[in-house]
């Protein structure tokens, strides 16, 4: 049954016990994204350190989310997969993830890159749910852009502000 292939146990686990949930300090940028078709919302904060651009390290991705199991679990998995990596690595993972969930089931996911996130491959069969799976991830991308924009503007200063 397709339903089981979408709601894999790993997704339901992340939904019931999300990892890294809650908004934390310090953070370089905070963004609020909404899925206008269903009203789901996520607030994402990122804290970056060391290096510039793609070399910066994702020290933390903290979030508060209201939404369906897919959007909640996807944000939880994003926290697991992106924190502790450089921005460059995180964006590579994000690209692979986005390609998979937008692939209408025709993209073979790379488990080495995507780890737990391969569980979201089943979402690709339901175009209406792809936005749910991407909500937190694209908020992260936006937050990084804003954090680095702020850093660039405040050149010379360390520890960006929200």
């Amino acid at each position, binding site marked *: *049954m*397709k*339903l*089981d292939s*979408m*709601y894999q*146990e790993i997704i*339901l686990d992340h939904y019931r016990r999300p990892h890294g949930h809650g908004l934390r300090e310090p953070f370089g940028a905070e963004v609020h994204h909404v899925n206008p*078709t*269903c*009203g*789901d*919302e996520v607030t994402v904060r990122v804290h970056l350190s060391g290096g510039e651009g793609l070399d910066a390290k994702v020290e933390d991705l903290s979030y508060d989310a*209201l*939404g*369906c*199991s*897919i959007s909640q679990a996807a944000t939880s998995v994003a926290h697991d997969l992106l924190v502790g990596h450089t921005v460059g690595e995180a964006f590579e993972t994000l690209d692979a993830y986005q390609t998979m969930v937008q692939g209408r089931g025709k993209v073979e996911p790379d488990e080495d890159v995507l780890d737990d996130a391969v569980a979201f491959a089943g979402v690709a069969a*339901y175009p209406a*749910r792809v936005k*749910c799976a991407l909500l937190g991830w694209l908020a992260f991308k936006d937050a990084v852009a804003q954090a680095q924009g702020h850093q660039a503007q405040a050149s010379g200063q360390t520890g960006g502000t929200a």
Partner: protein
Amino acid sequence: MTVLAPSTTGATLDVAEIRADFPILSRTVRDGKPLVYLDSGATSQRPRQVLDAERTFLETSNAAVHRGAHALAEEATDAYESARERIAAFVGADIREVVFTKNATEAINLVAYGMSNASIGDGVDPAAERFRLGPGDEVVTTEMEHHANLIPWQELCRRTGATLRWFGITADGRLDLENDPITERTKVVAFTHQSNVLGTVPPVEEIVRRARAVGAYTVLDACQSVPHAPVDLHALGVDFAAFSGHKMLGPSGIGVLYGRHELLEALPPFLTGGSMIEMVRMEGATYAQPPARFEAGVPMTSQAIGLGAAVDYLSAIGMDRVRAHENELTGAALLKLQDLPGVEILGPRSNEARGGAVAFSIDGVHPHDASQVLDDLGIAVRVGHHCAWPLHRAFGVQASIRASFHVYNTMEEVDALVAGVRRAQEFFGVLPPSEPLRGGSA
């Protein structure tokens, strides 16, 4: 007069016979599941009679209407105007009071932009002065509106400097008539005839009475009433009303603006161009009488003819019987859903002054997730905020699940919905299974 009163008559429809007219209802979805279509509030399905009317017109009489003098042009114009006449009669209006639009959204925008144009105050048309809005004036709407009957008024206020006010919603999903925002400053009162989420039918006559007492124009969103119950716009006494073809077994791409003739005669045009004119010079133009004044460009013709056929189809059944049938389904759905632990109805829980939209939430199951389980069973419902985001905010929820009915739905489909909701609760582990429905774990 309660226009959408609950009916005491039982269902006397031969639903099986009706369903046979709707080819799509016999298809299967999601690996062979029979389709259970409970999303007519979003768009209804179309009977063969409507599809055939469009096809026959296009195969025999298609031409641009109100232009040309050849045989096809004459037949097409007659068919188009005949549709207008039957649609007008269907809602208790005169033929001159029915303007064809793309949909109800465009119809409401037509009124808002007409008023906006009247407010520019270029003095060209003194008759339009009655619609002028400016700072100090107020437009009243309600918290339960579809965005289509909210945002055009927000925008009209922004453009003219008028202020938007609104009726709130009570905890049981009725309009809060106690806290009445209508004052001497009110120029327009725009409200729904039946909430597309809650099913609530506000007391139209009372609101019209209050609006008239201060000289305000009333604009009724009749999208969810006209398809499901007898509606007499003259008897209701509203100034303007809007509804869409695709929610009443008709085509998409066709909607109706009703306006009292005297008002349409004074309202400035919204879209301008061909066929809405009386006389044109390089320096300026004068405009045709309504409804032509509001139908610029070659209109959607086969769609208007399809809507005429939909009105014939509904009239042949009888709108009293349509209402009685849907009322029975709604009553059963309300009772059976409320019997399920953890299921909360948004809006009136009884069938009083209420139409056939049943919105609900399930404790511990997000509406999107619930709809996925329902979809897997072949059940089509709407989830999200149903273009009524402020309404959902008022209830403190982001989204809800909505089942909505039409004349072709059956009691078995209500039961399928209830079983599907229970299945969703089991799937997400918020209710102990009554019987082993699923082999193995999720």
